[in-house]
């Protein structure tokens, strides 16, 4: 095995609110100890409930948020402590795509200006070359050159998202964090964008972390799936492995809860009790114990370690072996 492209070791990100409260600062543990290796060309899907820290993790990896602790090594180089300036050269290789197509392009700049900006920032090529590159990238995502001088608001959500994707690829990055790039899109548009993502993934050699709360999308795009719950990784496995042998009770519930557009395949739903606890005040022991059907005393007190079962399948559950089928 090669050295991983990105090594994430026990990354934590806490948000401290120093709002109007006197005295103790409140602390939101958005990401609370997360480790993962991402290989070159590997596509990781990250799923989990809203507010479990997916976006925060994505941004922390790219050093857009300073990590509270832990290390992030990109091609062997620690990047988590780099200053805004020192980080610049790496920015070219680490890119991000955002969820909201209406917010991810500057409304005051034309599509061309927005597309050109990364090239300009890194002083790549002259004007003509840049324009060519932009047109080429836009072509790849199926946007014609007639759109170059449009403003974002003159385009549809799907088109904007495609532009955003094209822009993140324009510098030939090695690693991309895609933060729910399709969840704001309509079904019929979503498939267009997903197809483009998949095609790009085949034509360019890069890794990405695809954040989503929709497992079916992850299944369509990724090789490896990480399930997160309340700032922690609860399960991580290859796609096939995960979908065939979901082990953690949460993963199972998640899988069963997803409605399948097929009248004959109504799955037996596992309904979880209660809601996601607040990351400001996480439960002791296993973070999932408040909603778990199989909860024991141990779960309430001891935080389970990540166990590796069957190849690279990792699960954070005391009874992982028992649930593995």
């Amino acid at each position: 095995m090669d050295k991983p492209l990105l090594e994430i070791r026990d990354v934590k990100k806490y948000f401290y609110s120093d709002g109007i409260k006197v005295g103790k600062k409140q602390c939101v543990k958005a990401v609370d100890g997360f480790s993962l290796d991402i290989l070159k060309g590997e596509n990781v899907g990250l799923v989990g409930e809203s507010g479990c820290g997916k976006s925060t993790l994505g941004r922390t990896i790219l050093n857009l948020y300073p990590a509270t602790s832990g290390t992030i090594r990109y091609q062997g180089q620690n990047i988590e402590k780099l200053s805004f300036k020192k980080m610049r050269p790496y920015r070219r290789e680490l890119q991000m795509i955002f969820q909201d197509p209406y917010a991810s392009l500057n409304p005051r700049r034309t599509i061309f200006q927005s597309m050109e900006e990364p090239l300009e920032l890194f002083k790549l090529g002259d004007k003509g070359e840049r324009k060519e590159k932009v047109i080429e990238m836009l072509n790849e995502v199926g946007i014609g050159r007639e759109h170059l001088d449009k403003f974002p608001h003159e385009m549809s959500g799907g088109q904007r998202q495609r532009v955003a994707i094209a822009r993140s690829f324009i510098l030939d990055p090695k690693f991309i964090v895609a933060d729910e790039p399709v969840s704001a899109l309509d079904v019929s548009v979503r498939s267009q964008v997903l197809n483009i993502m998949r095609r790009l993934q085949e034509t360019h050699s890069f890794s990405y972390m695809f954040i989503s709360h929709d497992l079916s999308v992850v299944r369509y795009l990724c090789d490896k799936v990480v399930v997160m719950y309340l700032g922690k990784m609860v399960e991580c496995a290859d796609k096939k492995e995960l979908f065939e042998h979901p082990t953690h009770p949460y993963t199972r519930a998640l899988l069963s809860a997803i409605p399948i557009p097929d009248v004959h395949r109504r799955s037996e739903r596992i309904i979880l009790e209660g809601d996601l606890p607040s990351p400001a005040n996480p439960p002791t022991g296993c973070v999932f114990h408040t909603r778990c059907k199989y909860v024991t005393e141990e779960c309430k007190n001891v935080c389970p370690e990540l166990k590796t079962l069957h190849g690279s399948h990792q699960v954070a559950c005391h009874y992982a072996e028992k649930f593995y089928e």
Partner: protein
Amino acid sequence: MQEVVRTIKDTKLLIQKENFFQKFVKHKMATVAFMIIAIEVIIVFLGPVLFDIDPYFMDSSSLAKPPSSVHLLGTDDIGRDIFARMLYGGRISLAVGVCSTLISFIIGIPLGLCAGYFKGKVEFLVMRCVDIFQSFPGLIMILVLVAIFGSSVFSMIIMIGVMGWIQPAKIVYGATLSVCEKDFVESARSMGASHATILIRHILPNVLSPVWILIAFRVSGAIIMESSLSFLGAGIRPPQASWGNIINAAQNATVLATQPWIWLPAGIVLFVTIICINLIGEGVRDALDPKMKR
């Protein structure tokens, strides 16, 4: 809400094709107001050149005389031509309004921008300053300042300008906070743009629309402030004319009751100007922010 916002996005094709100017023109009152102000500015700035009149010249043969063919709007009690004084006063009033607003914005915008973008210490500092300026009435502060620096046009502009920086700063600060949340800022950062690039290219243009709206209201506020100061004897001082101090002749009951030509035109013009400027502000608001109006 959701629906409406979406609706706006849908109907955008209709709306967005119009540029700002076209949208502004749709607001009829604002357009009329704009024309009135434009005419006023032209008259006030070109008038003295064209008509060759002197606001300081005292026609001792005509003291406090009602409008006539020689003196279009009559003369004041020492024989100065009211029309000429109106024009010159207009220059000063408008200059005080516009220049002090300019100063307010020159101070306020960068501060608000930095406070909203850099957060932390800068934010704390700026917001404390805002607190300080906000918890003390500007009028009283300027009264104290006038006692020190006197009340020339220049110092008036500076003082009103400096006292007025909070509003733009706060608006820009608020807008910056919300724009900073937007993904395109994050995305610029993730592409390695420097702070300056982000601030100037990405944030500034997007926080300006509330600023445009504010301009009009600040200008009218500054004009009112100047005239109120004149009333308290701390504004623009004679012999220099400003609309504010021309109106102050009305403090004299005789003038108020029997010589309306001395103060009424300035009063009306001041009132109309402020209304027009406010209307322009409304028009700008509607044009920039279609949500407010259907």
